[in-house]
């Protein structure tokens, strides 16, 4: 069936502590660039790639 889901949609499960750890490393004025922070957060919430 062409319309069938290729995989199910699962809501992310992320422990709040993991997210806090990203921002707790330093005061705001000594944090890594926002781009790095974004990639770290995206890594927590994105599904991991699967081999095609």
């Amino acid at each position, binding site marked *: 069936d062409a319309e069938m889901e290729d995989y199910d949609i699962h809501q992310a499960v*992320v422990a709040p502590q993991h997210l806090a750890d990203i921002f707790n490393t330093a005061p705001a004025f000594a944090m890594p660039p926002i781009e790095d922070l974004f*990639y770290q957060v995206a890594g927590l919430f994105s599904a991991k790639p699967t081999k095609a």
Partner: protein
Amino acid sequence: RSTLNTKALKAAHSKSLIFEPRVAAGQTFAEIYTLCRDGFEELCHLDPRFAYFNNSLWSDQSQEQDRTQMTKDENAALDKHIEAFLHLCGSRLRLMPAIKAIEWLIRRFRIHEFNTAVLITTFLPYHTTPVFMTLLSILPSELPVEYRFLYPYIKSLTALPRAAIVTQATNSPNFLSGLSQYTLESCRTKQEYPALISFWAGITAEAVNRMLDKGRSGRRAIQTQNNLALLQEIGPVLSDAMVMKDVPGLRIASYMIVTILASKGNLGDEALRSFMDQLVLGWTPDTHKTGLVCLCILSQFRSAKQLSARVTKALLKVPEIAATLSEINKDYRADRLANGLALALVDRLSKKGDIRGLPVVKSLLVSELLQKKQVKVLCGMLLVAPFRVNDEVDPDGQIRKELGSWLVSLSQAGGNAGDSIRAAIKDADVDIDELELKLGTSIRPTLAIED
């Protein structure tokens, strides 16, 4: 009574960021002005935009300005200058000139009493520094509602931990919206600085994450209702941030929060689509890569597969989009976005005879980032596309001819991807004889060789 008044005035006059109360109490406005003017002049050297305040907050007459004697309108006008000045000082609060300059506003205009919220918000990204503690110590006993969570820290004079700010942002919509509006305003007026954006992003990200956890309920209807309420609260701020011109940092920060919202919020296709459209509306080359990662994650939670026309158009403008998505797919799942793009391009081909997207479709197909099932569906669609292109959009058959030779070249692709493509073409429920006739080309031999 007059002794009481004098005492109260003296106590008010002794509130200072720099001087001990006893010293401060004995200073005249002329003395304070002279001391603080240094700081202001240094700030003007650092950033010419400060000079704008020379005729208002720093005029000679300012030394005589008593807010309690000024009209409501005069006070309102003064508030505007004060707020703008504080926004501009924000990035420099670890420098003495900025503290000296703010000292003047505290002593002369009593901004800690008249502009409490904006003053605290300006210092909030520096909540770990000693000057923030000093600020807490001079605040009035009655604080704006959203800042009452500071009372225990003021009373005990202990440092304000980040966790307490996150908790307040989670529980008080007023606080989070105040912080968001302050940050957006700084960006709109080009007074933002990296620490402010990181601070806002971090607090908002954690607060949104916690609100989503709090809103979880065994009953689906209640959870959806909670998530919708959160979306209404934070959605407009994110929409503004995602299209903020010339502030790539804020856009990236908003991608971060949208990512969390989409991953846990069960937003539904319409909201996701609107975020995706907004994202590409505001992005520029310096936010393409982060934006693509965000789009990849949003796509994972969308049930509709085909991308919107706006997102499709925007992705076509990204150089080497297929290669870029393959690169992203090493760390984040990109197949769904890639698939959505390919489906949209094939749809454009079928409906409008637009073949400009074919090279991208091919790159996506051979890039090995699509799942086998996705390749199969896509090839099936490609094979029926020639039947859907009609004489109206392709009067001389040129498009169908090009499509034919393109399909032949696709069927000859090498590697694993080539195998999947050939298998998909073979499995497709399409009349090859009719197709060849229609395209004036031969696809069969290529397939036969593989058999």
